[in-house]
């Protein structure tokens, strides 16, 4: 069971709330202070991707964020309800198999050179970067990073090692 779960309607305004909750739970779980900015950014990227996908494909469905402290690692899983074929439009290239962590995610656009395509392959009015950059950023931030099917949608899981016992 997750330590904390957050469910929110797919509105951009709620992404900040998810970030704040994730950062607070990470701090409480003993994640090193120096990593909290990475947790905040990675969770924001995953939630932003999910919100964008939900708004296009299933605006009535909620997005789930599960935050788990298992004593060794702090894990965040962001689960959307977007069908796999539609998810490919939002940077998820392969959803069948878990992908390696620490920048080796085969399911996302590789971080290196990810932005060399900036200016091409635009996706919408706001996003001026190739789809998948958000996932590439997560892969560069988290100790471990996996994309996998979850029900009708996709889950993006990221985790960090705990550095200290919680207060």
């Amino acid at each position, binding site marked *: 069971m997750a330590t904390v779960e957050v469910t929110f309607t797919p509105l951009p305004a709620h992404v*900040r709330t998810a970030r704040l909750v994730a950062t607070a739970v990470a701090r409480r779980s003993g994640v090193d202070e120096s990593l909290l900015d990475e947790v*905040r950014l990675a969770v924001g990227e995953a939630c932003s991707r999910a919100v964008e996908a939900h708004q296009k494909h299933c605006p009535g469905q909620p997005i789930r964020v599960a935050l788990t402290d298992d004593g060794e690692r702090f894990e965040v899983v962001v689960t959307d309800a977007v069908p796999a074929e539609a998810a490919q439009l939002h940077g998820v290239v392969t959803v069948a198999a878990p992908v390696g962590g620490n920048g080796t995610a085969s399911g996302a656009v590789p971080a290196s050179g990810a932005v060399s395509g900036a200016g091409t392959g635009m996706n919408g009015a*706001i996003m*001026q970067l190739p789809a998948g*950059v958000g996932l590439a950023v997560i892969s560069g931030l988290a100790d471990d990073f996996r994309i996998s099917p979850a029900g009708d949608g996709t889950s993006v899981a990221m985790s960090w090692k705990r550095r200290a016992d919680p207060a």
Partner: protein
Amino acid sequence: MDLKLGHYNKDGIEVVDVEGEIDVYTAPRLRELLIDLVNKKNYQLVVNMEKVEFLDSTGLGVLVGGLKRVRAHDGSLDLVCTQERILKIFRITGLTKVFGIHDSVDEAITARKAEK
């Protein structure tokens, strides 16, 4: 914290002051400001990010979009940023090679003038 935006002209270059968080919720406001400035023929821009507390890939997308617009008019978009936590996302995405990133507004303006 919400996003606060302001802008002023200095030595012929439009400086955009950004304060707060740039994310999927607030980035459209920055995008609209950059588009508005370009539409008013401001093609030399400096975006001061010294008071930015959070920036994600949506915000990066807006900056890249602004850069594209000014470059279409042979203009420039330079950044002012010294915060490591903000610079990190530029490094991860390789955008440090795309933007001129400076330590101060004065330095950015001086560097831009020197290139002319």
